[in-house]
């Protein structure tokens, strides 16, 4: 691990360390999506990020997930500064440490459930047999062991999100990022998925960050960070 | 050649007015000889004043209008040995052959365009033809003096039946000896060529010009031809005036 340059005192305590991060989008008109945000998330935390549309919460999630790079400021994931990483190193970091759960599931329509779950494993170059075992194990864990060979189109919304969650978990990533995980589901299914996420937090000790509009989802988390106009306006922790 | 030219201009000028025609006929008659031989020197001066000289030997046999002539060039070196055979016919244009030793063959010169200049001189091929008096109309145009000698000035117009580059011309015939003194030829009523007969002497009873000066007024150039060692009525053989004889270089 490249961590030599990290400050020793902060190294172990914070899994996600965001210091003075800003993000501007250059276009005909420069849009500031995040303005000097400083934020620390501890290992094993379960955080919800709320705020109105355009407040910068998705941008924040993308930066945490290493999908995008900040315009200024520093982001450390597990002590590692992402600014110093190459594209491919960033990808490796993402693959090994971060699981994504999207609102629209983002399953590849031409691949069946097990292939979708296997995707990161294959990309990492695991042997085929081991890949298949691991993928099956995860699908069983999300209670989809009977739907292994189905294409995403043949599944319900909740089932699809379970497949997506299974895919996010293949490497036992310490961080799970969920972008409106229930946004595209009816309330019953949404509650079911939320339950599953809570289980993961409890059982696997994963650090979870959820971006959401849904007040119920936000309330179910230990900590809620509110964003407005690109700035953090509140940071509450409930016990 | 001198006589050929001499006569030919008479020939090309024949008359409508009976007395003019009679004058021309008399001039022709006085020039008659059985044969002729001379050495010619031709100087061609172009408008730039550059002069080139050629030499040849000419032999002629036969009567006016149906004579035969052979010309052999002797100088300069590039043309030495080139020979020309001209067979004149009273009723049609002459037949001409040329022998070029370097190529080793004779060729017929197809003289279809008689206004073509004769090998770079100021004479045209037409100027060298022997013509019968019947082919032109003549009219006495007055009296005049050329080089101090009194002459009849006769206007000549080719008859419609015969094509010519000239539409008319004048000939001056000396009153004292019926020798031609000057010829002017017009193309489209513009004076194109003037021929002067100089050094007219009596050789073996024939009044002959020893120097011909042809001036092309359009090109502004002049050809001077001298006739040396002129002889008349020498013995010549018919056999020497054939294409086969032409090939026999001498």
């Amino acid at each position: 691990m490249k961590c030599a340059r990290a400050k020793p005192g902060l190294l172990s305590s914070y899994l996600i360390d965001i210091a003075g991060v800003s993000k501007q989008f250059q276009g005909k008109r420069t849009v500031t999506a995040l303005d000097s945000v400083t934020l620390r998330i501890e290992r094993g935390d379960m955080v919800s990020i709320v705020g109105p549309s355009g407040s910068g919460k998705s941008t924040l999630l993308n930066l945490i997930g290493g999908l995008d790079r900040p315009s200024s400021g520093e982001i450390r994931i597990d002590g590692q500064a992402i600014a110093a990483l190459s594209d491919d190193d960033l990808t490796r970091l993402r693959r090994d440490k971060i699981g994504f759960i999207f609102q629209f599931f983002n399953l590849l329509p031409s691949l069946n459930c097990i292939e979708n779950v296997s995707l990161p494993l294959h990309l990492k170059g695991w042997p085929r047999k081991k890949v298949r075992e691991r993928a099956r194990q995860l699908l069983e864990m999300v209670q989809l062991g009977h739907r292994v060979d189905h294409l995403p189109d043949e599944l319900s919304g909740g089932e699809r999100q379970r497949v997506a969650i299974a895919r996010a978990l293949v490497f036992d990533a310490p961080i799970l990022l969920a972008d409106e995980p229930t946004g595209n589901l009816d309330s019953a299914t949404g509650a079911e998925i939320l339950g599953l996420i809570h289980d993961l937090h409890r059982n696997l000790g994963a650090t979870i960050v959820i971006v959401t509009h849904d007040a119920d989802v936000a309330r179910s988390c230990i900590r809620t960070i509110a964003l407005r106009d690109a700035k953090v306006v509140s940071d509450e922790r409930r016990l | 050649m001198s006589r050929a030219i001499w006569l030919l201009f008479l020939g090309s000028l024949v008359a409508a007015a009976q007395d003019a025609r009679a004058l021309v006929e008399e001039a022709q008659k006085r020039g008659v000889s059985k044969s002729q031989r001379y050495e010619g020197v031709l100087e061609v001066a172009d408008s730039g004043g550059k002069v080139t000289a050629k030499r040849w030997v000419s032999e002629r046999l036969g009567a006016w209008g149906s004579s035969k002539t052979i010309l052999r060039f002797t100088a300069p070196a590039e043309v030495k040995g080139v020979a020309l055979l001209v067979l004149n016919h009273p009723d049609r244009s002459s037949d001409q052959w040329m022998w070029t030793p370097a190529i080793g063959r004779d060729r017929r010169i197809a003289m279809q365009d008689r206004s073509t200049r004769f090998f770079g001189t100021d004479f045209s091929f037409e100027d060298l033809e022997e013509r019968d008096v019947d082919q032109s109309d003549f009219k006495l145009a007055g009296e005049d003096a050329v080089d101090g000698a009194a002459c009849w000035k006769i206007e000549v117009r080719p008859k419609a039946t015969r094509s010519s580059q000239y539409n008319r011309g004048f000939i001056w015939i000396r009153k004292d000896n019926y020798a031609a003194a000057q010829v002017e030829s017009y193309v489209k009523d513009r004076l194109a060529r003037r021929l002067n007969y100089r050094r007219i002497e009596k050789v073996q009873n024939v009044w002959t010009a020893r120097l011909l000066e042809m001036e092309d007024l359009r090109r502004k150039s002049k050809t001077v031809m001298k006739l040396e060692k002129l002889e008349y009525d020498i013995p010549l053989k018919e056999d020497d005036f054939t294409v086969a004889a032409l090939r026999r270089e001498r």
Partner: protein
Amino acid sequence: MILLRLISWPYARKHLLRSILTTAGIVLGVALFVGMHTANRSVLGAFNRTVDRIAGSTELQVSAGESGFDEEILERVQAQPEVRIAVPVIEAPVETGLKGQGNLLILAVDMTGDRGLRNYDFEGDDVIDDPLVFLAQPDSLIVSREFADRNGLRLQSKLSMSTMNGPRRFTIRGLMKTGGLASAFGGNLAIMDIYAAQQVFGRGRKFDRIDLAVKEGVTVEQCRAALEKLLGPGFEVGPPGSRGSQFESIVKVFSISSAMSSAFALFIGLFIIYNSFSIAVTERRKEIGILRALGATRGRIRNLFLSEGAAAGIFGSLAGLAAGVLIAKGLSRYVSGLLVDIYSVGERSDEITIDPGLLAWAFAIGVATSVLASFLPARSAARVDPVQALQKGRLQVLSAGENRIRRWLAVTLVAICAACLTLGGSRPVFYVGFFSVIVASLLFTPSLSLWMARALRPALQWMRPIEGALAADSLIQAPRRTSATVTALMMSLAMVIAFNGLAVASYDSIVEWLDSTFNPDLFVNTNRTLGARSFHFPAVIGEQLSAIDGIQTVQGVRTLRVTFRGTPILLVSADLRGIARHTVNPRAVAGDYREMHRLAGEGKGAVVAENLAMLHKLGLGSEVEIASPGGVLRLPVVGVLRDFSDQLGTIFIDTSVYLKYWNDDTVDIFRVYLKKSASAEIVKGRIQERFAGERRLFVLMNTEIKDYVIRLTDQWFAMTHVQTAVAVLVAILGIVNTLTVSIGDRRREIGVLRAVGALNAQVRHTIWMEALAVAFIGLVLGMLLGAVNLYYQLDIVQRDISGLVVAYRFPFMASLWLVPVMLASAFLAALWPGEAAVRSSLVEALEYE
């Protein structure tokens, strides 16, 4: 119009590269069409200009084909009362010792009479320095001022030229002013005395031509009729312009192949445009939905897309016109070079003749192709349902049911084609069959490429579990995106394979022919090559050769171009019995080999080449009729041979017959057989020694001749390389296009892949694999169609182009070569889209619609 500006232009600008690639096919097609035709016309134009300039005031020309005619004809023509002036001419392109000057056209005339017809605009006042010297010295030459200046020559300068007797030095004795006559043949014109030329070029006492003007009061037609009556059918009497027509029929061969190439490029352009537009319609269905919702009628939408097609066509065609004119110059050099090599009718074409009519045509064809290609997509666009189009994430399937209809149609066409094949025979049936099979293959391609993509999936997945599977899926899920490119690839490869097949088969047949008949040990020729003949040997050389130690047999061959049923074919006169004796593995297409040579040798018949027989439907017993200076030669066909001497056909007659009708005992080439003990090298040396300094001759070894013929064949098939280049271009264009669209369509998919951990290399791999898969499918289908196409192309060549019969042989080597070439092209094409995929923003890719 307003829609075009508001809606289409921003889209085109946004997808600038794709827009450019889309029109590239049109650009290529129009450029090839304009380039080749302009080149051909330029060469033809230059030829006609030369003819014109040389003609002067000539009203009629008398000629007797290539052989020339006896001098005495001139006197007969001159004696004709309708003729005012008639002068002899010999014309010959000759090599000079000057580097990079090409040939010098010698116009040999009789200066004593020629100026009545031609205006020699001489420098200075004087004709030639001295006309008498000009005639007296056979080394005299008059050149144009332009040529003199180009080569630093002045009056009295020496100039070396090839003659009968080897290179000789000539003296410049006159200069012509630039313009008019002096500008003929690009200024490379020299005037010479005709009798000197006869000697220098070994023409004997013959002229090539008589130029004449008619007498006043006589019409050209009257004079022509009178002369035709006087001279008989062996002579051609016509206005100077008619000389162009023979040249034209030679150039036409090039026109056919160039027309094929450009049609082919346009055809491919059609597919590329169709492809791009279909994709654009899919991508822009939302936009179309909005327009429809805002009140645009179906007709309006259709017209919008048709206008886009027209706009693409206009831009592409304009660019094509420009490119075509640019390449025309180089092409015209190539064409004139080839003409000199093969037909010895040299022409310098330094200026390009641009024909506005041709440009207009090319433009119209380019635009029409583009509009035609956009027709189906425009119709689809018009059918877009506004409600469905505006709904999120719902994809209206626009082509449902089309596939089945297409397949049925294809099956029907295949049946028609099979029926045509069994029926065989007539030309329309044959072409209907050909057409059906091509259209059937076009209709089948989408289904076939889909099936093949499905079949490929496991293999690709086995290679790379994710990248491979996704590459295959990309093809399977968007057949429309892929199939047009596959079709274009298939067509171009089918063409490449057919051309290569033709070349390979021709090679084999030609080599076989060379081995069987070109077996003399040495050839003694007037030239370094078998083409371009300005010189002929007198017959006596044959005897002199025979006397050389080591030589057993000498056979003289005279070849000349004659007109047979309106086309310029090759007439070969030789000692046929002698040649028959030496032929190895004699084989006849019709008739008995020995017997036909015996009969022809006795003057009782002619042997014809198979291609002539094919093209003119000749068989044993048919009568061939050739006009000659000595009258019309009529001979029965006593045999048909496979012979590749000439594209347009060859007739063989015996030397005795030629001598009788053409009164010409000159020889172009001596076939020399050596005694068993003699070495070719040594005898070659002896021959050169014997004639050194005395005669211009070239002794060629058997292998040199064969190499020359093979090289010539190569030049003819240079077109094959052009086709391969076009195929590569198509592959690159089509694949870049398809992939550009593909990465656009799969943006989200690629984003997900990257989000869950695909490294840049892995993303690139999936794009590359998709490209390779497209190329692979195109290759397989192209080879299949190529095999069929070759069958038909061989028949077309045989029936309608040159009548040459060559056996079917699939070009395995060339096809094998195509595999790496096409895969490499595909890979090359995938590089940029691969990078684009890696560089694209992840966040945007994952954003919700």
